[in-house]
Each structure stands twice: as structure tokens, then as C-alpha cells.
């Protein structure tokens, strides 16, 4: 199936393969899945409409190499729709990671997804990032992760302390 043909399933393996190619092409240093799909790695599935790929850029300029990433993926058949790049009609956002998110990329869990090596944010980092953002849905995500994921409480406390974060009252 061509990369721009819409798919009924989520083309996550294609997303991970493309992210690995960006590393191989020297456009990014490292990457990991974050956001809602990373949370789903640890909790029950729920509806989400895009994938968030956090990357550590090699380009330390203002654009963090996003234009080069975009043109590389477009040359592979990806399409552009506002802030998203689309693979088989599925929106993917490439987000330059700094601070806590960069730490989350570096310490992400290595997984194998349908034969493709990938990295997913640790549950503790998802909780910490949600605590730093603080919207209602972030609070709900924290609650769900605390209930359903096997969190390493010591690791979480350490991350929260180093980034001066506190869990919201649930």
C-alpha cells in the first residue's frame, strides 16, 4: 500500500519507521512517542485523533529543523495539513523537545511495534508533563495513569522534584 493511501487502522508502524529514518538521515538526534497514544501504552484505549512525536533536534536554530523534517517526509509521500503531517490520512505532529520533554525522550521505554523499533515516554514522564500543563484533560490523564499504570513512585517523585512540579489534587 502506498504511504499516502488512507488506512482503516492507525499507521503507527509507518510513523515509527519514518521517525527512525529521520534519525538515520541525520535530521534528528532521537525521538519518542508522547501525548495521548503514549498514555494508551499504559492505560485502557480511548479516542485520540493524532500522534505526537517528540524529537531532539540536531538543528539548534529557531525552527528546530521542522522545515527539513517536513520536506523529508513530504518527499516520502506524507501530506501537510496545518500543523500536522499526514501519513495514510492520519495526523502526526512533530514537536521539538526541550527540558522535561527532552528528558522524557532520552529516558523513554524502548519497544518493538510490529517489528519496528520505537520509543514511548515512560508513564512517570507522561504524568509529570501532564502536571506541568495542567489542563482538565491533563488532570484526568494523571488520574487514569495513577489508577491503571504500574508507576515507579520513587522515579516519579524524583522527576517531579527536579522539575519543581506537584501533582494536582485528585
Amino acid at each position, binding site marked *: 500500500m502506498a504511504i499516502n493511501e488512507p488506512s482503516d487502522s492507525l499507521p503507527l508502524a509507518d510513523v515509527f519507521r519514518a521517525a527512525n529514518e529521520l534519525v538515520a538521515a541525520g535530521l534528528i538526534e532521537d525521538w519518542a512517542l508522547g*501525548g495521548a497514544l503514549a498514555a494508551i501504552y499504559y492505560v485502557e484505549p480511548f479516542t485520540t485523533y493524532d500522534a505526537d512525536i517528540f524529537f531532539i533536534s540536531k538543528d539548534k536554530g529557531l525552527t528546530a529543523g521542522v522545515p527539513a523534517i517536513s520536506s523529508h517526509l513530504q518527499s516520502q509521500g506524507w501530506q501537510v495539513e496545518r500543523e500536522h503531517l499526514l501519513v495514510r490520512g492520519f495526523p502526526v505532529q512533530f514537536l521539538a523537545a526541550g527540558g522535561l520533554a527532552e528528558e522524557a525522550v532520552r529516558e523513554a521505554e524502548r519497544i518493538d511495534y510490529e517489528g519496528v523499533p520505537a520509543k514511548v515516554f515512560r508513564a512517570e514522564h507522561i504524568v509529570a508533563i501532564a502536571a506541568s500543563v495542567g489542563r482538565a484533560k491533563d488532570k484526568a490523564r494523571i488520574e487514569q495513569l495513577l489508577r491503571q499504570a504500574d508507576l515507579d513512585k520513587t522515579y516519579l517523585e524524583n522527576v517531579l522534584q527536579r522539575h519543581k512540579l506537584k501533582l494536582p489534587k485528585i
Partner: protein
Amino acid sequence: MKPEMRQKLAREPFAEKIRKVAQLIRLAKTFPRRAARQISGHPSGK
């Protein structure tokens, strides 16, 4: 849904959960109002 059932879903392999997300997206597109009710209370989105 009972907490035990939710916990069971949370323990499923990632690929299986991703298949279920795709089903939920299809359901949301076909029956937007029903899907909205079904997922209310879930931290969907980014």
C-alpha cells in the same frame, strides 16, 4: 464499565489497544454524538 474491565483493557498488548483506538475513531466518525457520550470522562486528545 467496571474498574476490573478497564484494568484488563489497560493490560492488553499495545498493538491490540491501537486497533481499538482505530475502532473508536471510526465509531466517532459514524456516530459522533454516541461516541462523544461513550468517551466522556476520558482524557482524550493530546
